[in-house]
């Protein structure tokens, strides 16, 4: 067998060298030409798609305004499909689907959007709303934070709206510490926006920091001493601080400025009068009056606790019965001791109420008096 010593060279193709070079040149020219052609065509295509998408988006927004949610979803979906890069379309679609009562679907739509645009403020805000709607507060708070610290190319209004939505959520959830943490960074913001300042000050009261609210309301009054809302706010703060007398004075000042207003002032005035008449720690009360008021407070607290706990835990009823006995017997040696005893009992019962029962607006006066006693 003949052994080949080397691999024979591949046969040269039949085209001449000049044919070969010419063909390569034509291919290169075609590539360059196609790049130019494709790029121009792609630009035209992109512009037309974007225009069409913008038209559909506008139609969707109009339908939303008219309350035609199904129709709006159709338009917004088309806009979102045509221009997937525009997050506003995707976000608007998610919001519309949420408004249609389909939070799971809205979530599925918004999650991939957020995967692509992790720091997008409006997408995070939309998903926070979905989570809030689904009652997933922890996740909602997280998305609200991402929204607040995210990117808002359209301006700062969205960021502020996101923060206030979070604040409202926290206020509704009675998460006072978190609420305070959200309010502190913005307490000096919007110094020219009076409504916003009042809202922030009011929220400080809700967050359990009425002293900060007082500072803001006083500052508002320094600018305009006839601002009735500021007086009302001051009264609320004073109530929270346990300064019931001041609260009444502020409310009277407000009443002078807006005598016809009954919706805001009347209930507040009634509450203030109620706490003033009930407060056993008020200065200048005689000892028998202190005994009477403290006994009354303990009795009211016991009634409130009984109302709440009877349904929840019948076994607590026994303990409550002994507390009743204690009140009825008036076992204290002296009046001063009796006041102490009554207040101590009321405080313990209130502690029980707070730990076991949901907050009840009907107990507003009791809460304020116990707040003052705790101070």
């Amino acid at each position, binding site marked *: *067998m003949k052994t080949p010593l080397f691999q024979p060279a591949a046969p040269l*193709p039949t*085209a001449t060298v000049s*044919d070969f070079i010419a063909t390569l040149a034509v291919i290169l020219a075609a590539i360059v030409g196609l790049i130019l052609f494709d*790029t121009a065509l792609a630009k035209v*295509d992109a512009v037309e798609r974007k225009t069409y998408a913008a038209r559909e988006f506008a139609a969707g927004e109009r339908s939303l305004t008219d309350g035609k949610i199904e129709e709006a979803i159709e338009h917004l979906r088309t806009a979102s499909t045509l221009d997937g890069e525009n997050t506003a379309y995707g976000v608007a679609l998610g919001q519309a689907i949420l408004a249609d009562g389909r939070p799971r679907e809205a979530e599925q739509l918004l999650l991939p959007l957020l995967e692509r645009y992790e720091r997008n403020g409006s997408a995070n805000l939309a998903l926070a709303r979905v989570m809030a709607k689904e009652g997933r507060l922890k996740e909602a708070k997280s998305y609200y934070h991402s929204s607040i610290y995210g990117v808002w190319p359209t301006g700062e209004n969205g960021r502020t709206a996101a923060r206030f939505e979070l604040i409202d959520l926290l206020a509704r959830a009675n998460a006072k510490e978190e609420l305070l943490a959200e309010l502190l960074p913005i307490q000096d913001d919007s110094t020219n926006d009076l409504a916003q300042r009042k809202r922030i000050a009011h929220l400080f009261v809700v967050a359990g920091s009425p002293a900060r609210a007082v500072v803001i309301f006083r500052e508002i009054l320094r600018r305009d001493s006839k601002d009735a809302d500021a007086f009302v706010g001051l009264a609320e703060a004073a109530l929270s601080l346990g300064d019931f007398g001041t609260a009444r004075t502020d409310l009277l000042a407000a009443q002078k400025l807006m005598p016809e207003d009954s919706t805001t002032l009347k209930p507040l005035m009634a509450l203030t009068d109620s706490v003033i008449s009930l407060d056993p720690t008020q200065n200048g009360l005689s000892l028998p009056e202190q005994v009477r008021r403290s006994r009354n407070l303990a009795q009211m607290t016991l009634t409130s606790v009984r109302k709440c706990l009877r349904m929840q835990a019948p076994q607590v009823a026994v303990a409550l019965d002994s507390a009743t006995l204690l009140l009825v017997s008036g076992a204290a040696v002296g009046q001063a001791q009796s006041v102490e005893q009554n207040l101590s009992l009321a405080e313990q019962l209130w502690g029980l109420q707070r730990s076991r029962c949901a907050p009840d607006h009907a107990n507003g006066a009791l809460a304020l008096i116990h707040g003052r006693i705790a101070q």
Partner: protein
Amino acid sequence: MAAIKIRALPARLVRMVEDLRRKEDRLNLLLSLVIGALVGLVVVAFILLTGRLTALMYPAGAAGWRRIVVPTAGALVTGYLLFKYFPLARGSGIPQTRAALFIHDGRISLRSAVGKFVCTAISLASGIPLGREGPAVYIGSGIASVIARRLGLSRAQIRSLIPVGGAAALAAAFNTPIAAVLFSLEEIIGDLHAPVLGSIVLASAAAWMVLHLILGDSPLFHVPEFHLVSPGELGAYVVLGIVGGLSSVAFVKILLWLRARFAKMPRASLWIQPVAGGLTVGILGFFVPQVLGVGYDQVERVLNGDVILKVVVTLAVLKILATSVAYASGNAGGVFGPSLFIGSMVGATVGSVAHLLFPAGTAGPGSYALVGMGTAFAGIIRTPLTSVIMMFEVTRDYTIIVPLIISNLIAYYISQKLQKEPIYMALARQDGLHLPTRSSRTYPEVLLVSSATREVPESLSPLMKISDAAERVKDSALESWPVADDLGLVGMVRTRHIAHALDQGRVDMTIERLMQIARRSESDNSVDLPHVHNDQPLSRALARMRDNGHNVLPVVSRANARIMLGIVTLPDILKTFGVESVDELDYRDHPDL
């Protein structure tokens, strides 16, 4: 100096080009990149032009009558063009590409490729519900074929560039470069171990890069995150596999049946036949506009959970019908895209039902639509590996793999059982083409070295003198003898070298010395220890004999190449293949060996 350079440049260029043409590897590398880029650009132009044309034919807020008139008119125009000028541009393009590869030495004319481009663009833009991927593969392969022929390449080289162009086109058309490579190997060539893998990968990557440069990094579908809510949900994916498999079989059978009916019509009606498809599509599209076109926007909506059970069931059924009629009647366009549409609708249907029955234990219908796409692809196109990788590329989500594999394999199995011939094969057969199947291209009855191995003859010792060795081998017909020491095989020595040494009177020379001289001599280019293993094919033994010039090779252990298990000789190999040379001596007749 400059003048010298200018005069010298053409000569140098000529040398460079000649050098390039001689070195096949380099030329393939260059051509893969060039073809990949060019095909990518052409396919991008194809996608964009089709889109612009569609926008022209169906402007926003257009009247309903357009949905009947445009597909009918489009089918009429393309029907005439196909009949008169581009007869090879009908249908998908995948069977035609395979025919070019296996029958026509890789020849696809420029006219056919251009015809495919024009007719498919008109057809798709007019709302015919066929896909762009198959035609793109044909166009890509056509471009590769034209370039290769213009460059004067050999037939083998032209053939090897066909799948390269096809892969590049698919990578650009579907934005899935890895799936494009696999599709080229699995479907076009029908061999996952094809030696052109490197070129295909390069071309696919080049085309994909072009697509991204021009159209940006936007995936074909924006899909939500895939969710497998519970392991029990895999049961629902089994159901999806079954339903997907059955739907695939139904689609393929309806399409083939209709196509056979159209084929029986008079040849003179060929130009008008597509109109039947166009009109059917138009009537269906008038009532259900989503039937028109390839429908990827509708697929995206379903993937994103916009699913109404009644709508997706209707769309699945109507799309099967519309696509079958449109394809069978001879319109230009493929079944790749419709497969995905049908799959997504079937998946959404199964997903909706599953979610209705087990809302807490199953994901939304969008996830099922996603898996359904792969399932239908596996069932219709019958490329299970490509379908898994393709869906993985579309979602870029690893969690989809398990349910996808389950559904795909079930659909593939059902499809194989109920429809023996894969769709492209059946289409080619209807056209009278007998293309090789994957199974016909594999050789399970490969003959192994073990079938021709004979016992080891007594080896020569390296220290043996030439005179003794000559005495030992004198009556043997073996052309080479194994040389072994205490540790095992050392090498092979040629009988003629021993005889030559003896003739020269070097009787005291050792075999070891003789082997050293032989190795140094220019005429012996053998490796140190030429050998084969028992489990290797006989073709490998033949190739090794050719490379080393030995007609006898030792068969050695894979654990230790110095342990000899036997020898294999050229006459034995020929005899095993059933070719007995009269010139060759049958060693078995010589017991002295």
